């Protein structure tokens, strides 16, 4: 394999089933198929946005990729030089070493920062865990990073506590903490959805600038397609544990192929009163994938459903797009 074609991250047939137990004494008989056989690659330096409605499995995917969950089945490969290392098989020391290369940013900066630690202690903690540098080196590294995420002058922030900072500043601290061990890949789970519009844009462009400067890749989890458009080169749409469509961002937004992607895109309100939007035609809401039937997950709600849809659809390739739909098979 040519070096240029080795992806940074490769997810192969990844599955995560959660047992649904009706009683604590009984063994679970049914399972929620939270993530069901998903595959994707993220090339070095590129970002993938994972979009979908609540409960579609996007956060579970994020937690699997950062190994906060151990998958039921499948592989997660991370590039290490010329090779791909399967994270699922890692344990103990090698798992800890891997955490230097994959970090997470969470949604709520009010919850994800320890209120009893100063900003310096918060950002330096991963260095302490990984045993990197002397105290002085850590201090320097944290100071440089704080300036990089726009908390200037760093000296005035180092010894403050999270409650003294605004939401936007806290999220910048969380970003600095993720970056301090110099990861290659960051799982960002709705990093801007708690922030106000005027603050959100600043944090979004900071993340994009950092990606460019440091060659980072993100798995950017969001429910907001407009945010996905501005943060990622590719979009993957999830529905009930499956990736139903994946492809280049602008191409997908202008020409969605899967009926679910079409509905999702047509439901997004447009901040321009001169444009009239065609509302989506699908009915009903999303349900939980508890022991789903072996057919298309979108079967009940799909306006274009036909005979073949009663069977599990194959992944169809079309114009550089992967679509999980019989219409395109």
């Amino acid at each position, binding site marked *: 394999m040519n070096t240029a074609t080795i992806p940074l991250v490769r997810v192969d047939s990844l599955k995560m089933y959660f047992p649904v137990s009706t009683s604590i004494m009984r063994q679970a008989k049914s399972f929620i198929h939270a993530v069901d056989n998903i595959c994707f690659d993220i090339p070095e330096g590129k970002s993938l946005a994972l979009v979908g409605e609540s409960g579609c499995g996007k956060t579970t995917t994020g937690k699997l990729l950062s190994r906060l969950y151990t998958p039921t089945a499948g592989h997660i490969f991370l590039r290490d030089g010329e090779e791909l290392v399967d994270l699922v098989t890692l344990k103990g020391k090698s798992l800890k070493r891997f955490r230097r290369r994959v970090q997470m940013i969470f949604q709520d900066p009010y919850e994800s920062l320890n209120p009893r630690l100063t900003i310096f202690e918060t950002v330096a903690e991963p260095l302490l865990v990984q045993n990197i540098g002397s105290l002085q080196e850590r201090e320097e590294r944290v100071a440089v990073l704080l300036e990089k995420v726009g908390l200037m002058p760093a000296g005035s922030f180092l010894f403050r506590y999270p409650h003294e900072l605004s939401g936007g*500043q806290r999220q910048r601290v969380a970003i600095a903490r993720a970056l301090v061990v110099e990861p290659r890949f960051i799982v960002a789970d709705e990093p801007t959805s708690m922030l*106000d519009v*005027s*603050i959100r844009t600043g944090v979004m462009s900071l993340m994009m600038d950092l990606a460019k400067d440091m060659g980072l890749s993100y798995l950017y989890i969001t429910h907001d397609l407009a945010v996905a458009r501005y943060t990622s080169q590719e979009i993957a749409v999830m529905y009930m544990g499956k990736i139903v469509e994946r492809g280049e961002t602008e191409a997908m*937004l202008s020409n969605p192929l899967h009926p679910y992607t079409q509905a999702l895109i047509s*439901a997004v309100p*447009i901040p321009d009163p001169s*444009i009239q939007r065609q509302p989506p035609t699908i009915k009903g*809401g999303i349900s939980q994938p508890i022991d789903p039937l072996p057919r298309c997950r979108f079967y009940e709600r799909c306006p274009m459903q036909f005979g073949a849809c009663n069977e599990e659809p194959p992944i169809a390739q079309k114009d550089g797009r992967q679509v999980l739909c019989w219409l395109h098979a």
Partner: protein
Amino acid sequence: MGEQPLLSIRNLTLEYKTRKGYVSAVSDVSFDLMAGQSMGLVGESGCGKTTIAMTLLRLSPDNAIIRNGQILLDGKDLLKLSEQEMRDVRWARISMVFQAAMNALDPVYRVEDQIIEAIDRHQTDLTLAHKHQSVEELFQLVGIDTKMMSRYPHEFSGGMRQRAVIAMALACSPSLIIADEPTTALDVIVQDQVLRELARIQRTMNMSMIYISHDIAVIAEVADLIAVMYAGCMVEKATTQTIFQAPRHRYTKALLSAFPSIVGPKTELVALPGDPPDLLLPPPGCRFHPRCPYAIEHCYQEKPPFEQVGYAHWAACWNPV
């Protein structure tokens, strides 16, 4: 015109008393709303949108102190009414759709009974069969299966709960409905359905509506007028078209250029520097001046008046676009 507005807020100024001092939550806000109009109140968290809504219903917390102003509903000042008189206004004249539908419904009562409770307060002479029938009509109006009437809130999905809360707000046919972030907790497809339902009902029943949201795209789709708030002040008010095509206030302009969209060319988003001010110590002059790239000396010195700058267009800016 000569037509009298349904709702007219005059110079409303409100502070919250806290341990650290007085928080200037709403500062000298005035606006009119005609019968049948829908207005969007946009702004970031803490800008005073919800405070205005709560004050309209006289449901402000105990530490709220109204320093000045009038809230005129059909010419009558709501701030002068006794609590008893106010109860006749609430729900019958003004009702509210709350943000978190799960918290707005009582989990231990059937949804039907909760709606009947609201009807009972205002129409005491109805028989049970009549009330049952009105709930049935309300459910049909908001698009929920009438079989769900005798169910409990936890048996409803998020979108259905929000519809039930809307049904409850409609129960006494009010002339004004305030919807405080009605779809923020919902996914886009359900949000789209609920917004359409609300807009349709508002038009068919010719009610006035105040939508409160931080999401300017949602407001753009449902409101005839938009009022933009920043740090307790109303900074601009105009028709939806005007706000989007020819905003005058620098904050409105900044808000619009920071908002991402999935249609049209991918324009560069412009971030606003800094954070909203601490309202314990609001900045002097225009409250937006510390973050405004176009601030001139006058902006530091004097608060800009909320002036008419065009047809049905008001703005408070010393150095407008």
